[in-house]
Structure formats: structure tokens, C-alpha cells
């Protein structure tokens, strides 16, 4: 099924931010906004919720910490108890470095892998960029066109009035 989009192209981040506000105030649903760099303040005007990735990182870190402590205590304390350097079997202070490293490792990797999955990025030959200039110097606002519902000329005028330098149409094969 093909999806049809109208793309408003902007060339300034401040214009873009007010444009998003105005578009939303006019009752238009914005499908997605593409920019060459993270525009600050865009989350608020677009209504993007705060990412829950920090929670993933925390849980990952907790898992790593528990795993590391369990591994060391079990290996040196129970599976093959051995006194090294006069330290007790379960020498917690000298287990701290490995515990710390595995906490960081698990936190980082669990978060990054989750980021890849939820953002749907993976090594791929497919390119989903709506307008190639959005990875260079333009800001692109994509609005989905619903057949028979969307008034194209009104939408065009609305985008123009918010400062879009160009308004294009694009069909995406799903």
C-alpha cells in the first residue's frame, strides 16, 4: 500500500519550531520531522515523550552488577575455593573492579541495543529518507495525506504560511 506525504521544507531551526507549533495549533497531525542535527526544543513542540532508555540502562547495569557479583562469589567462593594472597574466599573489595566494569558494560550495551531496536535502525541497504537534503542542511516536515480527507491546497498554503521554502509531495511504498 502506498502512503502519500506532503513535505514542507524549511531552512532554519527557529522557523521550523514555530512552524511546528502553528501547524499543530491549526489542527494538522505531523507525521514526522527530519533534521540534519538534533534541534533543541523540538521534543516539546512535537510532543515527544521523554525516552525511557535511561530505565533500560539502569536495569541493564543492575543485571550486570548482580551477574558479576554472583559469578565471582560462586567461582572463587564455592566452585573452587582458593585462598589467594591471604584474602578470604569471598574477598568483596577485590571483586569491585570487575563488578564495576560489568555494570557499565551491561548498562551500555543493553541501552544501545534497545535504542537500535526501538528506533528501528540496523545495517540495511534500504534508505527511508524522505528528502535527501534533510541529512545536509534542510529541515523536513512530513504530513500524511489521507485520500479524500486532506485538502491539498489548504495544506500547501498552510505550510507556506509557516515559512516553508518548498512544499513537495512524496509517495512511499510500504
Amino acid at each position, binding site marked *: 500500500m502506498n502512503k502519500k506525504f506532503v513535505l514542507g521544507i524549511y*531552512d*532554519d*531551526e*527557529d*522557523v521550523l519550531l*514555530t*512552524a511546528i507549533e502553528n501547524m499543530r495549533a491549526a489542527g494538522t497531525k505531523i507525521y*514526522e*520531522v*527530519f533534521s*540534519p*542535527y*538534533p*534541534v*533543541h526544543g*523540538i521534543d516539546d513542540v*512535537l510532543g*515527544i515523550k*521523554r*525516552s525511557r*532508555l*535511561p530505565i533500560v540502562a539502569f536495569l541493564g547495569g543492575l543485571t550486570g552488577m548482580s551477574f558479576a557479583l554472583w559469578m*565471582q562469589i560462586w*567461582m*572463587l567462593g564455592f*566452585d*573452587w575455593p582458593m585462598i*589467594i*594472597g591471604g584474602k578470604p574466599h569471598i*574477598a568483596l573489595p577485590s*571483586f569491585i*573492579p570487575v563488578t*564495576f*566494569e560489568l555494570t*557499565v*558494560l551491561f*548498562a*551500555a550495551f543493553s541501552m*544501545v541495543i534497545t*535504542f*537500535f531496536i526501538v*528506533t528501528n*535502525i540496523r*545495517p*540495511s*541497504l*534500504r*534508505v*527511508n*529518507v*524522505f528528502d*535527501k537534503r*534533510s*541529512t*545536509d*542542511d534542510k529541515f523536513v516536515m512530513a504530513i500524511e495525506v489521507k485520500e479524500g480527507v486532506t485538502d491539498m491546497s489548504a495544506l500547501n498554503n498552510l505550510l*507556506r504560511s*509557516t*515559512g516553508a*521554502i518548498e512544499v513537495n509531495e512524496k509517495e512511499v511504498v510500504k
Partner: protein
Amino acid sequence: MQHVSPIREPLVTGGKTYHDITEDVCRQVEAKPNARWAAALAVALVGLAIFIYSVYRTLFYGIGEWGLNKTVGWAWDITNFVWWVGIGHAGTLISAILLLFRQKWRTSINRAAEAMTIFAVICAAMFPVLHMGRPWLAYWVLPLPNTFGSLWVNFNSPLLWDVFAISTYFSVSLVFWYIGLIPDFATIRDRATGPIARRAYAVLSMNWTGSAKAWSRYETVSLILAGVATPLVLSVHTIVSMDFATSVIPGWHTTIFPPYFVAGAIFSGFAMVLTLMIITRKTFKLEDYITLEHVESMNKVIILTGSIVGVAYTTEFFIAWYSQVEYEQYAFINRATGPYWWAYWSMMTCNVITPQLFWFRKIRRSLTATFIISIFVNIGMWFERFVIIVTSLHRDYLPSSWAMFYPSWVDVGVYVGTIGLFFTLFLLFAKFFPVVNMAEVKAILKSSSGVVHTPHNTMHGTDKNLNTNTHHNE
């Protein structure tokens, strides 16, 4: 909305637009390699060949090819290991700690500095692995179930902590670096003309589109990674220092080692970043992105860390005297006046005296002076590791076993070889990857480019011409 700060210098000069940044950075990736790059690569490849041959000698004939003896069982290998790990630290420091501190000047240099980290850690890892003598058994350092019953690795040993610290550091740095590269790979992908380049960068860019939601998550990920990488950087060199500090050798078992090694690492790392950046900005014409302001900021870090290192040297001496331990006292007097006095005083000259020249603004802002001093610091930090390791080992408690260490040519070959390896990797990086983080530089452009951006009157601007670039020079 934007204004030019009266007290801060712009971070991007030359009145650049977003598109200029893309052009300037992508040019290197898209153009044919220039002659200077090819010549540099040829020299680096010679170094790599030396490395391969020296490693072959080491593995085929054994560690006896090195100049080690019974007294000095660790010399150049561990010196080079600590030196390289230290150099690696500046990259993560720039990308992580400066990100947490919201230092915008990091944006132009963090990409190359992180690449330097990755390559320096690769070079560093070569030494402990080769020092094992039988690197094909290197997996023995991992806690894997094995055929010796349930015999596990020794979690009480700092050498094992190193295994975890270095491998975690390497993998987290690699991921951090790669995530930063994804949006820039997307930029190159969308500009690519050749089919090979387009496919290669399409795969590397992981289908990145730059949607607002992706950027939002991307920034969260960067911030958290910086948050976990910051203590990680400090822990890695702390643990490296514990290889020494937990021993009984006079001159090694010092509680000052962890902070002192970390400061030394940042010191040598920034020196290496400067060495590389001064060459890179010149060869790739990136003077507008890596400005004198950047060089000066890094030089300030060098003064700070260089002074910390200087204080640490003095403190060690003071504590040796104050502890009343004669072995400790002898170790330090021997360092300064014994057979390795030249190494000690090279270290003092390069690390304590030369960086103090940066107190002069003129020297701090001179590229030639900075380049020379950065080389001095690198040499000095190598000598610091050498002094700590060899002077402490060659005369410890038992005078009958006192000995001198003389490096063999294989020692020299492996060391020079890793420099070749490092530069081979760095040059390949500089050619095929964007050297400057385009997305991040674009993000700071409006607030710090020395150009006044006039906000447009947006509500009624239906006329196209109204919204063309309105950059006015200062």
C-alpha cells in the same frame, strides 16, 4: 534570538552555513586521496611491516627476543602498554566528560579524538597479549569453563581486572564512537554518487533518517553513555595503576598512583590529540572548525594535568622521605641519580617544565609551539612509565640480583611498529570516515559561529525570497 558573545570566541569561523559544513567535511571522504595522505600512509605501512616482523620474531622465537632479564621481567612492553592506554584516555574524556560539562568546543574534535582512543587501545592491548608469550591461549584470562576441572581465573589479581577494564573500555568506546558516526554516515550516503560508496555508507548508516524521535533518543543515549563512560575512563587507568600499586616493589606500592596515573593519562592523551589535530586541520583544511580557540582550550587542560603530574612527582619524593622506609628512599634517590638518571630528568623536563610554557598566551596560541610541546609531552610520558617500571624493578630488595635493562631491536621494533599500526588505522579513518562530527557542529553553529542569524518573520512569509539565507557577517 542569537547574538555574538562579546567574551567568547566563535567555535566555527569563516561564516559557514550548514551546507558548507557538509561540503568541507565530506570533501575528504569523497575526493581522491591526496599525495600527502598517500605518502603518510606509505610511511605508516612501513611501521606496520616492522610491527608484523617483530611480532613474528617474538612469537616464533619467544619472549627471549626481548631485552628482559630475571630482574627486569617487565620493561618496554608494560611501558608501552600504559603509555598507549593513557593516550587513549583523552578521546573518551573529550567525548564523555566534556559532554557532561556541556563544553561545546568538544564538538569539532571529539570524532578524531575518539578514533584515536580506539586505535590507541588496540595498540595497547598488543603488549600484554604478546607478553603472554603464547597469545593463542589469551582466552585463558577469561572466566570460561575449562578442562582443568572447575579452576577459574583469579579475581583478586589486578592483571585480571585489567582484562575486564580494557575490554569494557574498548567496547563501550567503540559503541559510543559508532553511534556518533551514524548520522554522519547518513549524510555521506545521501550525497554518494558511486554505487559502492552508496551501498557501503548505507549499511554503515543503519538506515538512519534523522527523524525527530530518533534524534531525541539518540541524545538520551549519548548522554547516558557519557555518564557511564566517565567513571569508566577514570577506572581503567586506576586499575592499570593498581598493577603496580598492589605490589611490594619499592617505588610502586604508592596510594597516589590511581589519581596520578589518571592525570598523566589525560595529559598524554591531550598531547596526542593536539599532535594529530594540528596535522589534520592543516592537511584537510579544517582551520575553520578546529580553531586556535580549540587548541588553546586543550593547552589549558595540558597545563592543569601537567601540573598535577608535577605535584605527584614531588609528593612521591616527599612520601618516600617521610615514610622513613629506606628501600623507598633508595628507590627515589636512585631514580634521580642512579644509572637511569637521564630517563628521570628527561621525564622531568618534558612533563613538568615544558608544559608550563603554556602559561604564556602567545605560546598557548602558537601552533608551532603547541606542536613541539605536544611531542615533548608524549616523549615525557613515555619516560614516566619507563622510569616507574624499570628503575623500580632493576634494583629492589636484593642487591645480588640487581641488573640493568637493555632493549633488544625487537623491543624497539614492536614499539615503533605499534606507532605504525596506530597511524595506519588513523589515516584510513581520516580518509573514509568524516573526521569532524558534522551533526554536532551544525547543532552549535547558530549559537557559536561568529555570524549573526536574524530570525525570520515566519508567520506571513509566503514569499520564497524572504526565507533564503539571511546570514550577515559581523
